[in-house]
């Protein structure tokens, strides 16, 4: 009978299932081969097009592609290191930059590096106008002087070495790839000349890279032959993967475990600056933050260290001005607001509100951002203490931004913002966030100060690094005095790895990028 059959089949299925379960002994999984690196990463790929890339995939891009030059990690002797260009020079007025290319560089598709390829790559990015293409705005003309010399003529002076070394928008694409459209890349293809070749790609799941045998630096010494990227967004899972040896490297584990990760015999943690920082921008066009005293009171009221502790597990430094620690333009000597409730309350009293204000202020943050979410309650409590009632309103990032972009008189009173520079010069940050805007776009605090605008422009156009640095410090001082924004903290990014994994290089100019070429297992 059918039903009997059904029952019999079900029983058999169950029995077989149980047997399979019993025989499939888990536990001691086979060890990973030494020449394979498994990287548990939170970062998905939003595009494979090197001209459009400006998001989380930039973690992988520097392993596939190379720029003309690299920015050195903080503390290096030189500011820059050669990449595909062996040397370069700028004219005195900072408007003409000449790069002398390395010879004998082969791309993954077998084509060769020439000056024309460099010109085409930059022009492709400029033409598409996607992603970080705006950093190339200063370029006027690109000239091919000979097969291995390329010259950039700029519309106005700019630190083009920093632009050419950017982690976004400055990759050199092979002659075969450069003519392809974006769809071609989105199939999971690349056209780089970096140490690793994209071998297979399952979106949001797995990416496999194999080493490129003809890489120009060669493969002497210990290197990995294959890199397996597992996209794992869940912090506890990454922790387990590294602990159990299923992954060699990870970039996000639970904040609490992160603190003690070093103490485990199998694993350790590397911490470095990241150039990412969090700020809360105050609406200077609206009560109560049109009053500089109240703005300063807010800066004094923030429990910076508690916030860093809760949101980042202690991995951060209270910000000194808007330019993060380690970046060009950062100045340790600038004034830093300390968490001081007495001072904050005194400032409130000075402003005429010793008992606080009646009105509730609205504070928005991006729901997508776990860090902003976790420090929001602390902010609310601190402000309540000095008499500013806060309503926390989490919003989708785009919705929050849309609100900022509307009428300042009706916009939120406070907004959290995570920022990172597109390239290593502070101009972009300072210009975007505090430059006077006709129509609000990135200037979340609606700050207006012609002197500030003039100072940063002068700094940008100054080729001499020391002079530029001094100008940037002066501009930052203006911001700190006017306090249109609360500079909360600079993020330190941890990397979690097995102890036997060596050679990890942290370079915050390429935020969170693991340079696989230098890594190996002991």
């Amino acid at each position: 009978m059918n039903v009997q059959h059904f029952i019999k089949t079900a029983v058999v299925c169950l029995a077989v299932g149980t047997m399979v379960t019993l025989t499939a002994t888990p536990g001691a999984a086979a060890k990973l081969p030494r020449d394979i690196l498994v990287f548990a990463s939170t970062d998905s790929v939003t595009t494979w097009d090197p001209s459009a890339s400006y998001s989380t995939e930039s973690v992988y891009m520097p392993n596939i592609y190379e720029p003309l030059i690299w920015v050195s990690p903080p503390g290096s002797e030189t500011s820059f290191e050669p990449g595909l260009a062996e040397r370069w020079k700028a004219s005195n007025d900072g408007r003409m930059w000449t790069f002398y290319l390395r010879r004998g560089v082969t791309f993954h598709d077998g084509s060769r590096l020439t000056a024309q390829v460099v010109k085409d790559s930059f022009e492709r990015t400029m033409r598409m106008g996607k992603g970080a293409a705006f950093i190339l705005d200063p370029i006027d003309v690109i000239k091919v002087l000979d097969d291995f010399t390329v010259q950039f003529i700029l519309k106005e002076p700019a630190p083009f070495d920093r632009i050419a070394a950017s982690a976004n928008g400055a990759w050199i694409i092979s002659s075969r790839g450069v003519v392809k459209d974006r769809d071609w890349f989105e199939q999971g293809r690349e056209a780089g000349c970096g140490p690793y070749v994209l071998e297979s790609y399952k979106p949001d799941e797995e990416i496999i890279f194999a080493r490129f045998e003809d890489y120009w630096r060669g493969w002497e010494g210990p290197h990995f032959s294959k890199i397996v990227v597992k996209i794992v967004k869940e912090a506890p899972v990454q922790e387990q993967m590294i602990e159990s040896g299923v992954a060699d490297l990870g970039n996000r584990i639970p904040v609490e475990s992160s603190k003690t990760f070093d103490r485990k015999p199998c694993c350790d943690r590397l911490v470095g600056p990241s150039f990412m920082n969090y700020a809360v921008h105050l609406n200077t066009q609206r009560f109560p933050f049109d009053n500089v005293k109240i703005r300063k009171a807010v800066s004094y009221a923030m429990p910076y260290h508690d916030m860093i502790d809760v949101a980042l597990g202690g991995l951060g430094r209270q910000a000194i001005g808007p330019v993060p620690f380690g970046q060009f333009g950062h100045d340790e000597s600038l004034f830093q607001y300390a968490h001081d409730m007495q001072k904050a309350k005194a400032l409130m009293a000075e402003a005429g509100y010793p008992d606080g204000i009646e009105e509730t202020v609205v504070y928005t943050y991006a729901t997508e951002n776990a860090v902003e979410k976790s420090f929001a309650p602390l902010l609310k409590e601190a402000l309540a203490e000095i008499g500013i009632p806060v309503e926390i309103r989490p919003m989708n990032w785009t919705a929050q931004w849309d609100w900022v972009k509307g009428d300042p008189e009706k916009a939120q009173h406070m907004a959290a913002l995570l920022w990172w520079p597109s390239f290593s010069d502070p101009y972009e940050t300072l210009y975007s966030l505090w430059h006077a805007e006709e129509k609000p776009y990135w200037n979340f605090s609606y700050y207006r100060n012609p002197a500030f605008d003039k100072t940063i422009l002068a700094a940008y156009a100054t080729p001499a690094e020391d002079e530029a640095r001094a100008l940037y410090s002066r501009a930052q001082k203006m911001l700190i005095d006017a306090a249109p924004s609360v500079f909360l903290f600079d993020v330190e990014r941890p990397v979690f790895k097995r102890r036997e994994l060596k050679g990890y290089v942290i370079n915050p100019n390429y935020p969170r990028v693991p340079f696989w070429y230098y890594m190996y297992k002991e």
Partner: protein
Amino acid sequence: MKKDAPHHRPHGRARELQRSLDLIRRNPLTLFGLFILLMLTLTALLAPLAAPYPQQGKGLSNLDERLEPPSFKHLMGTDDLGRDIFSRVIFGARISLKAAVAVVLIVVGIGVPLGLIAGYAGGKTDDLIMRFADMILAFPSLLLAVAIVASLGPSLFNALIAVSLPWWPWYTRLMRSQVISIKEMPFVESAAAVGASHWRIMFRHILPNCLSPIIVQATVDMGYIILAIAGLGFLGLGTQPPTADWGVMVSDGREFFLNQWWISTFSGGAIFITVLAFNLVGDGIREALDPKIRWRFQKT
């Protein structure tokens, strides 16, 4: 085959009710559910008194005692802001119960009048309303809810709207079938004969006689609604911090759950117990009123 067994005897309405109450009283599972519901409602009402740390229940942080495991001081441990989980679970009960009641009110408020009109008017109006209701029912409801919150933006209010919108057609259906069975009854016809207006007949004569199945259905649905709202909260689409919400707490605890297991475990346990209680009671009521009634399908 009609058995001679002496089962069939006429009962009065009061008798029937008595019988139902007896059945409920005799079912240990239902009693268990009722007991839990009573406790829950009490703690929700008296949350500021019941919670050991009412300020933390409302969201105040306590950074000196972060992520402490359960102890006598903190029965269910503390979360990453050092807040007492037990207090937050108690305050979460308020949100959950309030939200469930609100959704039921919205759903009944939309579904019942539409069903009343559809059943009473019949014809084209009926067709129009019921086709529309059928169409809504053909969509996967959770997905619709998620899409709605995703568009309106995450907040408890939007989550309530989103859960309600795909839900009301069940009540329209139920109401319509009730109305159709009642509308031919003599007392309705006599009301029409003395010239009562349609509105009067619908709301004064028909509606009060259709309410009991609606009330039963609403009780049964409470559990599902709590589950649905908790689910949206878990996805980050419901209540926003620092308000205590069970779904959000489970989601927050996920960051720590393999080591600091208590955050998710207790808040999720609270959801489970509450939904279980509502379902046990609903189950009992249904069984008592009509053992043949089919379990309506509602997936969260």
